[in-house]
């Protein structure tokens, strides 16, 4: 039922899939970010350089706090007063566009490529 060209089409699709695999993995893995910004209820309240080692206590919207730790170009939440600690379980982030969200405190931490990042006047 299959002609030679039909089989060739199948081979070409498989080849395209195999060739594209490393390419897309490469393209989709973000580059190392530069800054981490902190948003509270969607408003930017702080930003930190990822290269500086530090630990900041960030107060959430309804009392309570998140402890944001920056180390070796990576950021993570080391401590939080929220009940189920989803923010801590989101682990370490370092690539541009990655984020950690703490919904109960209305906090969001996002990695930006450079100072200012993609946020514009409207977001701020």
């Amino acid at each position, binding site marked *: 039922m299959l*002609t030679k060209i039909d089989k060739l089409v199948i081979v070409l699709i498989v080849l*395209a899939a195999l060739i594209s695999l490393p390419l897309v993995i490469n393209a*989709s893995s973000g580059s190392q970010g530069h800054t981490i910004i902190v948003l509270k209820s969607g408003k930017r309240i702080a930003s930190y350089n990822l290269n500086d080692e530090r630990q900041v206590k960030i107060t959430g919207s309804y009392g309570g706090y998140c402890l944001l730790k920056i180390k070796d170009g990576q950021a993570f939440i080391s401590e939080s007063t929220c009940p189920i600690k989803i923010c801590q379980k989101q682990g370490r982030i370092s690539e541009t566009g990655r984020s950690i969200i703490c919904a109960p405190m209305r906090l969001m931490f996002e990695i930006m490529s450079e100072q200012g990042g993609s946020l514009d006047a409207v977001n701020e």
Partner: protein
Amino acid sequence: MQSMSSGRRLATFSMFLSLGLILQAVEAIYMPAIPIPGIKLGLANLVTLLMLFYFTPSEIFAHVIARLLLGSLILGSFLSVSFYFSVAGAFLSLIVILILYKTLYPGISLVGLSLAGAAFHNVGQLAVAFWLVKTPAVYLQLPILLIASIPMGLIIGLAANYSMQRVGQIVSN
């Protein structure tokens, strides 16, 4: 079959259009959902493949446009995100199918056309997805969708072959 009378031609066109719409609806309602977005059987493409033998490229384009519009109105996906995916996929895949049909048929069978169409349908979808969300991570789906397009394309292509053996005579008589 360019010699069909215009009335018969219109009737046949309408019949194919309703067939396409029914298959699209049947697929949307009865096919089990696959947890990876973008993968589907594409039953309606079977009708597009059959039309290659009876209609001109512009008529097939008209068929696909009408099916996309009416189908999305029936299923309620009109102007939704998935609608744009379908439009891009459908046009890209149709262009590829028409080119291959004109240049390679009968060296390439309906199965090969269906396979190529399925693969390019996914490429078109992803291009739009990337354009909409502007995140390169969208392309991670490409290898998955390409591999998935092989069984889907095979099924539709073989089904189109069998249908052709039966529908073919009905239409041309």
